[in-house]
């Protein structure tokens, strides 16, 4: 760390203003102010034709609605869907990252690039490709009926598993990348030492590799969980209106119900939850890092 304000020579206040000022004021105006606004909106009521009715303060009312079984249900559904997605991403992503780290050097980059490459074409189009695959006349059903496994098309599309699949597809690379860099960073000498001491590969993995990669696991899980939780496009396209997540709920409060105060409450709830999650991750990361 470069900790040397004293040696700067010139007036440090000016340097500080020039360097920190623009970025921080930008964030103050276009990040903190909007978030403060959302907090402010929660105490007002919806205007009759949308917008905000400033005259009717009713702080408790908007927050009370979130405990309503309907909205609480959507929140828990969203948490479950995001959690299942994250778990699947981990189950598939960890062995994938591990496999990449075992490749010969020049192939590793290629393998990694191949994981990220689909990211560079439009997210909505890629999601739509799944509709083509999963619909009752789609590729999967045609193949299954073709080889006689089933005689009637399965209902794959517009289900919760389809939503999980779509989210997994969208965010799997965000799991693989941090896992790879964590696995890659495990000092090979540690592995050698373990082997020299007579540990079998499985034992080496459990007592050396796994503990050292847990911070990467945490990062990957947060990277997948956070965007999955707030996504509203995948539930809309692959859920066909049968699956509602908190992202859809927020969007609908702003567009359909034109109920900005309640939409703000939902957004803040989502944010509060994620802040807790990040704090937990930072805490766990420190504990693991201290090993």
């Amino acid at each position, binding site marked *: 760390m470069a900790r040397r304000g004293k040696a700067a020579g010139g007036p440090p206040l000016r340097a500080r*203003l*020039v360097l920190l*000022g*623009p970025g*921080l*004021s*930008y964030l*103050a*105006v*276009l990040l903190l102010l909007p978030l403060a606004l959302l907090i402010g909106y929660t105490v007002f009521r*919806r205007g*009759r*034709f*949308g*917008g905000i009715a400033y005259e009717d303060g009713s702080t408790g009312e908007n927050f009370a609605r979130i405990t309503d079984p*309907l*909205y609480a*249900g*959507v929140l828990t*559904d969203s948490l479950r869907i995001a959690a299942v997605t994250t778990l699947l991403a981990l189950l598939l992503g960890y062995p994938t990252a591990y496999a990449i780290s075992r490749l010969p050097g020049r192939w590793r980059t290629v393998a990694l690039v191949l994981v990220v490459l689909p990211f560079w074409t439009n997210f909505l189009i890629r999601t739509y490709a799944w509709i083509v695959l999963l*619909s*009752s*006349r789609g590729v999967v059903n045609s193949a299954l009926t073709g080889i006689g496994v089933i005689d009637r098309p399965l*209902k794959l599309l*517009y289900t919760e598993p389809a939503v999980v699949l779509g989210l997994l597809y969208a965010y799997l690379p965000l799991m693989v990348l941090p896992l790879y860099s964590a696995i890659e960073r495990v000092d090979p000498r540690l592995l050698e030492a373990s082997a020299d001491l007579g540990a079998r590969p499985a034992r080496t993995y459990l007592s050396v590799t796994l503990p050292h990669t847990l911070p990467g696991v945490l990062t990957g899980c947060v990277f997948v969980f956070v965007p999955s939780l707030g996504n509203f496009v995948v539930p809309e396209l692959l859920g*066909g*209106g*049968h*699956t*509602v997540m908190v992202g859809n*709920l927020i969007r*609908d*409060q*702003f*567009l*359909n*119900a*034109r*109920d900005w105060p*309640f939409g703000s409450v939902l957004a803040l709830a989502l944010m509060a939850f994620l802040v807790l999650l990040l704090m937990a991750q930072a805490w766990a990361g420190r504990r693991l890092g201290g090993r």
Partner: protein
Amino acid sequence: MSVAATAAVLALLLPGCGADGQPGGSGPAASASLDPEADLRKQRLTVSNWDGYMPKDLPARFESAVGAPMTVAKHGTNEEIVAKLTASADSGIDVAFVSGQYAQALAAQGLLEPIHHDLVPHLRNLDPLAARLAHDKGNVYSVPYTWGTTGLCYRKDLLGYTPDSWNDLLKPRAAVKGRATMLKTERWLFLPAQKALGYSVNTTDEQQLARVKELLLTAKDDLLAYDDTTFGDRLGSGEAVLAEAWDGWCPTDDKRIGFVVPKEGSDLWTDTMVILKSSKNKEAAHAFIDYVLDAKVHSWVASNIFYKVPNTAAMAELDPALLKSYPALAMAPEQLLKGESVVDLGDAATAYTRIVTEVTAG
């Protein structure tokens, strides 16, 4: 420095200093006087409409007829465009196409320029009934563009019977289970259940809404999907056999597909053209509406988009062959008026959104 950065951000954001580079100056007072002699060639018109809801070469024809160049912006749904028009001081949109109840809500928020009837002489072509619609009596803020109703669009060959009730959709026979779609947009998602139960499409009665919800929840289990836009393709491919549909979007030119308005009744929806108060091209905006209402133009529009237009002179000019393949086009206004007008519900809208959430999440 930090003050300068903040100021720069704010300056970029403030109305009139934005990318358009046109200085502001149109206060509320500007609506009072429009210049009928204004040089329209100096105005640039921007019109927002749904995708595929007007002929592709309408802008070019308008420009050559009137002189004002015109660009088209597209919106996906009423909700999207209303959110944009509400959030933005100057959206850059001069004329927007929105459904009647949304025109009502925009007018209530003071965002619309009153229609200057003297600048729209072709208003006389409008069906007199179209000036008495509940969302805007007397066409104060909006001019009807199309109107129609909602019904059942179905595959004659695959269904085996002619549906005549909303219950054919809500309590489907075995052959229809998993092969029916309903409209997704809030008010029309409610409509089949409201009409099947004999309620108004504008009901705000809690008990009625609770029963509507129950019915929608049971119906959901047998549904393929909620679908506003692709039910025509699904019917064509046979993935769906029955769909709740707006009349103009039921592809009855396919001989296997039929359209029926259920016996319990339906709605009368209107899509309208409105002029934004923030528009800086109000004369051209009026000229555009007047151009559309021209009998020849409006009938050309109808024959392109297959929706009825509330324009008596234009409907008279339609090709009889077209009326034959699109029977819904031939519906008489009196018949249409049996449907109930959809109006904005103000505060009750939240109850509707809540029920939609309950139904779809349930």
